[in-house]
């Protein structure tokens, strides 16, 4: 029993790591552009499948992650430049356009890669399992690597947003978009960059996630659902909120899967309901 609890806890942590990588991109583009990009789950899945194909062709897992991310970054750039900018300023229309793009990408994926669930092979250097000291549970090395990767991305995003010129401009745009625009900064370019970065993160998450979970039809919407729950709990547009939201969502989902599998997804209704009734803007969200 305690082994099950320990395993669920670790699985929850690694799922949280994956959810953080996915949700950080979504929350970043939301906080700047006020668009909930519903294509995010489709980007995740597209990135994962591209990674799968690259891995089959080259056998290089790191390259697969890189190209998967790059592909969805380009996809996101195109979506932002040619479709979303069409309705710039009308956030509802922009969000609905992103929904239609998600449906189109989801069906195209089905055409190219078929409907059978697939998994990306774990790279040899990250295969096997290690004994975690103190609690003494044998755990796959790959999942521990994922945890490290998420922490690396957290630090990377933090340095990018706090220390680089571009990051500071983005944060200024989040706080007061009109002022930044009035200062003569090219906001259109800023939007495109952030959207590309956000899409790239989703693609990377797709390859990383596809290596320990299945890639298959419907997975795009499951990931989008979990990601939206993360940012509803954590608060839209807050990076620290995304970390906490990912931890809560990951742990609850993992424990629910272990103990009450029939309700594993529906059980997430609980934190959403509790958070929304106490703090409608999310744990770390600002008052709208």
């Amino acid at each position, binding site marked *: 029993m305690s082994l099950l609890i320990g395993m669920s806890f670790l699985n929850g942590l690694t799922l949280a790591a994956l959810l953080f990588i996915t949700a950080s991109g979504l929350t970043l583009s939301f906080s700047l552009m006020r668009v909930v990009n519903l294509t995010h789950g489709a980007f995740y899945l597209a990135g994962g499948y591209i990674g799968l194909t690259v891995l089959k062709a080259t056998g290089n897992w790191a390259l697969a992650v890189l190209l998967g991310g790059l592909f969805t970054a380009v996809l996101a750039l195109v979506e932002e430049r040619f479709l979303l900018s069409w309705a710039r300023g009308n*956030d509802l229309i922009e969000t609905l356009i992103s929904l239609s793009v998600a449906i189109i990408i989801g*069906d*195209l994926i089905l*055409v190219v890669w078929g409907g059978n669930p697939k998994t990306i092979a774990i790279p040899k250097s990250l295969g096997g399992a290690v004994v975690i000291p103190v609690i003494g549970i044998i755990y796959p090395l790959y999942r521990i690597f994922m945890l490290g990767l998420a922490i690396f991305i957290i630090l990377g995003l933090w340095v990018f947003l706090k220390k680089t010129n571009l990051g500071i401009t983005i944060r200024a745009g989040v706080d007061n978009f009109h002022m930044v625009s009035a200062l003569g900064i090219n906001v259109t370019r800023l939007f495109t960059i952030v959207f590309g970065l956000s899409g790239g993160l989703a693609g990377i998450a797709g390859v990383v996630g596809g290596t320990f979970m299945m890639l298959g039809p419907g997975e795009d919407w499951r990931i989008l659902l979990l990601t939206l729950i993360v940012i509803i709990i954590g608060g839209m547009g807050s990076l620290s909120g995304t970390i906490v939201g990912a931890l809560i969502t990951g742990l609850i989902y993992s424990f629910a899967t272990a103990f009450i599998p*029939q309700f594993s997804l529906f059980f997430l209704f609980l934190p*959403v309901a509790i958070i929304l009734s106490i703090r409608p803007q999310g744990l770390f969200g600002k008052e709208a």
Partner: protein
Amino acid sequence: MNDKLSLNIWKIFFGIISISLLLTLPWWSSGYVVMMVIRIMYFGMLTMSLAFLAGELGWVSLMQAAFFGIAGYFVAILQTRYSLPFPIPPLIGIAMATVAAALFGLLVIRTRGIYFLMLTLVLGQLVWALASQWASVTRGDTGIHEVYAPMLFGISTAESKTAFYFFNLIFFVGSIIFLAALKRSPFGLMLRGIRDSESRMRMLGYSVGLLRYCAFIFAAFVAALGGVFFVYFTGLINPHSVSLTTNVDTLLAGILGGINSLGGAILGTGILKMLDVWLSGVTKRYLLFMGIMFMLVIMFAPQGIVGTAKKRLETKRKKTA
């Protein structure tokens, strides 16, 4: 004024024609057309519930199919598993869907715009997850089969499509009257007030939350009614009926016809359901086609057919005036 009068005469004229056509439909058309119209009627009820929220409150919902499905699932479970006699399963089904709306409504009333859209997407998907995962009750992805339509006045509506048609027609027209009356009532006016300026309505002393809450429950009630006819007509229910695809289909139908009017919702549903039949014979890429159509309508005609037609008429009238 004269224009308005002639418009009203036209409306009454079209109303009488369409009612007499609908009342005599089974005698002058084929069984295929009757079945098609039945389909359009119950999905039309689902679309109307979405269009009511969108038109009156500016709320674009991605969970109306959840209420449609909850009612359908309750009817199916109570009838096949507990074999309860006729009026009980649909009554409980509609009541439970309304209770679910009362529960979910507490969470959504404070949101608007994309936040409402996002939250209803999440809640709708959670209902779908329940339908698909809670296999001991919902039978998972296979769904529940052999749900027979009831006997009414000694006629089996399961066997006679004509009887089923009139059974459905009564409630379909009832739903239209119900929602149209709500729209015309002071309640509808208050809702549009909230849509246009929430803070002003709040200042005037209206309870914005309560009004929204009631509207949400009324809309769910109509969707649930549609769900009962859906499960009776098709005889089965599975997670697809509460899936995101069904929700997006409903939204597409609403936007295609014109989200601000009930007539537009029915028109949109009719077009989409006929396309659906035609497309499924031609291609397997229904979702791809639907996605592209959704995108084009959103980008080029967000007002829909009825909305665009109204705009045309108005500009024409302005030119002549």
